[in-house]
């Protein structure tokens, strides 16, 4: 596989190292001279100095082949967006992965159809949410293309659904329960599954239906 990496920071350099170790072919582009020189010592001719949002730089790095995968991992969200748009729409690269530095910019990546994206800050926030008990509904996974998300809900004693069967719940349209975790064991949620206080329920739903789901399961 041939991979083009834009951005030679910690993420870029580590991905580069791993790809080469696994026998792939890769080029890494970095625009800061100091960083580039360090990369060049390690990766030699496979490191390139330049601005990866410039078309001639991408061409020199072999974007016309085209690569199987382009990774936009710079510290600038604007740059990552433009790199992915150029790769996909100008050069026909089939797969891109973009890093989102500021989670507030995620909406722009979604708007411009650049996916998948990786955002360290959002991941950390997700984990924090998971650790904080007052968060009754935890986002586990977003399926952007499908416009669905998977959440976890903790059922407690006061929950209106405790003691009820799944088929008796007035779940919002566009929401389904996937599984119930009880005493360390998971089972698939079917119509006859009864919910108990202490259950951890996985649900799949359309983004924006969280409050309706909360009302049915938690009455909050």
């Amino acid at each position, binding site marked *: 596989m041939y991979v083009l990496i834009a951005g030679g920071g910690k993420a870029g350099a580590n991905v580069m190292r791993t790809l080469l170790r696994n026998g792939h072919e890769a080029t890494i582009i970095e625009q800061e001279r100091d960083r580039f020189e360090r990369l060049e010592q390690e990766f030699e001719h496979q490191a390139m100095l330049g601005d990866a*949002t410039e078309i001639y730089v991408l061409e020199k790095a072999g974007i016309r082949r085209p690569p199987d995968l382009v990774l936009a991992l710079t510290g600038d969200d604007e740059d990552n967006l433009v790199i992915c748009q150029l790769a996909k729409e*100008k050069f026909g690269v089939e797969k891109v992965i973009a890093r989102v530095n500021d989670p507030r910019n995620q*909406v*722009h990546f979604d*708007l*411009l159809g650049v996916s998948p994206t990786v955002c360290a800050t959002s991941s950390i926030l997700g984990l924090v949410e998971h650790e904080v008990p007052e968060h009754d509904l935890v986002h586990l996974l977003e399926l952007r293309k499908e416009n669905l998300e998977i959440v976890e809900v903790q059922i407690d004693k006061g929950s209106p659904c405790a003691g009820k069967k799944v088929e008796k719940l007035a779940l919002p349209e566009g929401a389904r329960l996937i599984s119930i975790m009880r005493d360390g064991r998971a089972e698939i949620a079917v119509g006859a599954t009864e919910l108990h206080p202490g259950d951890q329920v996985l649900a799949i739903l359309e983004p924006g239906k969280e409050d309706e789901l909360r009302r049915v399961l938690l009455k909050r």
Partner: protein
Amino acid sequence: MKALIIGCGRVGSTVAKRLAADGWNVTAIDEKEAALSRLGEDWTGGFVVGHGMDTEVLRQAGIEEADAVVVATDGDNTNIVIGQVAQKRFGIDCTVVRILDPARADFYAQRGLRTVCPTSTAIDVLTDAVRSCEIPRDRQEVAT
């Protein structure tokens, strides 16, 4: 008619003042508060401090009611992204974006963004200026 000017430097501020003089209701956005002084002491239009990539800042500046958006910050890629946000998210047809790199300006123009490339303009003007100079006849053969 309402216009939003994103990036209030030499170019943005002058465009803002000209449109205001034409009777537009103009709001300028810049990251630095000091940019307000470029608009002059008698500026009666709006001014919002913030980054143009921030949708909240755009809303605060009234992008939802805007008829025209001019994007002229000092970063090409920033302008490209903000321009597409104005066009695609807020549906503003008259979105004009400054892009200094001719190659990127061309590519985004093909994709339906109204791009203005001062570099290409400078290249054309400079070349034409030289072509229009009168060179003495005895010097004309030097190149050949």
